[in-house]
């Protein structure tokens, strides 16, 4: 299941939904990504961000997330997959993204959740703009996120 939406999610609710659907799951892994106040804590001059704008491409974003779920299901036997990504204006400590996977055994649950997040970072059309007190700044894609895709032999 994939969803792109403005409103917040409740991790407990999503976990219970996965648990009901997953049937004979031995393992459920959930991940939540949050908005951090400081993106570059080592740079002293970095101001704290006040808001984070999440922009997306309606239609293409959903298709990209569906493909990520489908690719994960091809690699592993997943009993349930849940991906929720928020869009719109968020602030520090807000939840941005939820990924949940349910499988028979724990290794698969962890691996598939990492796979989904790695692809979600670079292959799903979302763009982030940080706003402090001055002009907003678009977040640049990071080498490390692009390199993370290599470990999946794509």
């Amino acid at each position, binding site marked *: 299941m994939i969803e792109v939406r403005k409103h917040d999610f409740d991790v407990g609710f999503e976990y219970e939904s996965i648990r009901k659907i997953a049937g004979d799951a031995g393992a459920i892994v959930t991940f939540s990504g949050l908005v951090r106040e400081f993106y570059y804590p080592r740079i002293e001059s970095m101001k704290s961000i006040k808001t984070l704008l999440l*922009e997306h*491409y309606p239609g*293409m974003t959903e*298709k990209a997330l569906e493909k990520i779920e489908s690719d994960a299901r091809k690699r592993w036997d997943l009993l349930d997959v849940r991906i929720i990504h928020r869009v719109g204006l968020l602030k520090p400590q807000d939840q941005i993204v939820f990924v949940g996977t349910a499988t028979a055994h724990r290794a698969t649950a962890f691996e598939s959740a990492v796979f989904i997040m790695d692809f979600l970072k670079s292959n799903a059309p*979302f*763009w982030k703009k940080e706003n402090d007190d001055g002009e907003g700044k678009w977040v*640049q*894609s990071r080498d490390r996120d*692009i390199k993370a895709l290599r470990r999946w032999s794509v």
Partner: protein
Amino acid sequence: MSFVVDIFYFASVREAMDCDKEKIELPGATARISDLVGLMAAQNKKFLEVQKAGVAPLLVSVNQELATGETAISEGDEVAFFPPMTGG
């Protein structure tokens, strides 16, 4: 003979173009993305700047699938230009 495609811009590309969508007419019945980009760079200074500027490549999609310069386009296709993605 000519055809029209819908162009969408996102994120920093949208800001640089000062526009979120427009229609562009091309000659003939089909073309490649590289032809469209050439036409847009010639017609619109802002697009030329977007192409030249930036440390990251400009990405393009056709009908909501990632595309390259070789991808073909024809009447009614949806083309989008955007920077590398930063989700999650």
